[in-house]
């Protein structure tokens, strides 16, 4: 966890969309943009090594993701994508 992370207060954000967070592990080149810039700090490096020899990201816990989609757009390697969960969709 970086120093800037420790200084920012943890704000509980409400879920924007109910999504399934996916990663194409072999596409990841390990830039760690997704882990650093996630607004709710929901991602971390996994223990697994992919074909490129880097640790792809994973969700810290199942319900940590709020579905904002920033990691998807910020990933330079098209490795992350979100899928809307069928049936539930956006609440509120």
């Amino acid at each position, binding site marked *: 966890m970086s120093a800037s992370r420790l200084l920012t207060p943890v704000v509980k954000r409400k879920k924007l969309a109910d999504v399934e967070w996916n990663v194409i592990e072999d*596409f990841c*080149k390990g830039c760690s943009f997704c882990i650093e810039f996630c607004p709710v700090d929901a991602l971390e490096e996994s223990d697994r090594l992919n074909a490129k020899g880097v640790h792809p990201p994973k969700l810290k816990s199942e319900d940590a993701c709020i579905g904002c989609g920033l990691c998807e*757009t*910020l*990933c*330079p390697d*098209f490795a992350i*994508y*979100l899928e809307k969960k069928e049936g539930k969709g956006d609440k509120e």
Partner: protein
Amino acid sequence: MTVIQEFEKHPLAKYLRAERFPHIWCEGCGDGIILHCFVKALDDLAVDIDKFVVVSGIGCIGRAAGYVKCDSFHTTHGRPIALATGIKLANPKLTVAVLSGDGDLFAIGGNHFIHAARRNVDLTVICSNNFNYGMTGGQSGPTTPLDSYTTTTPYGNIEHPFNLVHLAAAAGSVYVARWTVLHVRRLAESIKKALRKKGFKFIEVISPCPEIYGRRNKLGKAIDIMKLYRQISEIRHGYDPAKAEITREKIVVGEFIDIEKPTYGELLQKQFIKIQQKLSEG
């Protein structure tokens, strides 16, 4: 399931040539993010892919033309705007976008750029600015900042760089914006706005080159460069592009110019009709 089959589930995969992925760009290179924002803009606008053309020149981001699943040209060095002008004039129904780098658009193709902007040809030009010639090994280029180190300026650069947004605005672009790759949402919105608008639109995207420019200038890894962008970038819409110089302390980003002007294609059509009338009158 193979990686390609897995990639085909990606919501943007329908706009990309899946068989060519993963792409060749380095770890943390901004070009991947630019391509993502570009494709996201196409997806949001539900662009008809059969009426869309992407042209790119030589350079790292020149590969983008090979990755998008529409008609695309990876043309000779410095000539993407010249080729795109031809495509647009030959078939005005097509939407043409140019994705290229700072060296390609402003050094080798500098004249094409200023004259296409002056004529107001209906093109969307997206320039990935990484401050050096990354693909050929990191030579200094027209945007390399003063005192920075590249392979051809090992004791520091002594040439003043171009301020691309000022150049584009002065040459007559109708839409001028600058973003860094950190501003993904704003960049995608900006590309959408540019694609909807008529005339010569220019978007400069500051992109990290961690492997070459970043390494020589001791900027750290890609993530460090992104943190630097977060720290020093300042969003100021409608700011005077002449004052929006990029320095080590500040990068002013935002939409600088948004005006309306008749395009070259429209004026050309009017001219055709005028001449035909004259001839028919005898």
